[in-house]
């Protein structure tokens, strides 16, 4: 059952990306182009998503000890702001600004098979593969302090 809902969640997520315009890099790049052809639409995408997710998560936390078809909620519990988080996010943003794609929209747009998407997605997967296998270069700083 959980597999069915995982598939369904992905499908709804993808439809949301398409309807909202987020799967169109032209809209994303214009959202980021505040001093040019600014299109504020994507602020509404994020606002709409958070307006549903925030109360939804809060309700689940209050009403349920476990998910409906699984044994536990897997919520990240870290709260430290570490250099790896900042570096990764900064690098991600540069790529997002260059191509207008973040991971969800890129995968959603893949079947449309635009040339740019067909180039972007394999390189994105390679980047992810490398990141998983790159040790935290800042972790030595932390142990040095301890």
């Amino acid at each position: 059952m959980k597999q069915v809902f995982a598939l369904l969640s992905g499908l709804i997520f993808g439809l949301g990306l398409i309807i909202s315009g987020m799967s169109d890099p032209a809209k994303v790049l214009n959202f980021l182009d505040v001093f040019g052809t600014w299109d504020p639409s994507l602020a509404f995408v994020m606002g709409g998503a958070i307006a549903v997710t925030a109360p939804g998560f809060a309700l689940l936390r209050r009403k349920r000890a476990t998910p409906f078809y699984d044994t536990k909620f897997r919520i990240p519990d870290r709260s430290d702001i570490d250099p790896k988080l900042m570096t990764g996010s900064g690098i991600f943003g540069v790529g997002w600004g260059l191509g207008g794609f973040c991971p969800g929209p890129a995968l959603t747009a893949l079947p449309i098979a635009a040339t740019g998407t067909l180039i972007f997605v394999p390189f994105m997967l390679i980047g992810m593969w490398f990141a998983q296998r790159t040790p935290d270069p800042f972790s030595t700083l932390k142990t040095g302090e301890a």
Partner: protein
Amino acid sequence: METEFTPWLSLGGGMLIGAAAVLLMATNGRIAGISGLTSRIFAAKADGEARGVSALFVLGLLLAAPLWLLVSGNWPTQTVPSGVLVMAAAGLLVGFGSVFGNGCTSGHGVCGISRGSGRSIVATVTFMATAAITVFVVRHMVGG
């Protein structure tokens, strides 16, 4: 190129994205973070079930546009930059950065902010800023 301001469609689509995130959490207990789910499929260590559920979510994402085509008769409209080098570099940076920084627009920007996570708020402000700076440099300093 200008694009049309679509507040209602964007709000509605955003709410669907939020509903999908709540559905995944309610049924599977997992954060709907696309970079995390995608990379878990080929992670060095991940249990088979986590891999399977992640792969099915991504399959759902991949089926959205074909379903759209089936129902409406057209692919969703989009304009994708086509420069080979630019898109290859963009893909590498997005893939590496999102996994290295533990999340992307969905994991940090939607789910993390919804949980009130300080890490996610910092991450979101960071990638929004570097993305906006990149667009500014490309469009108004290099290409302008």
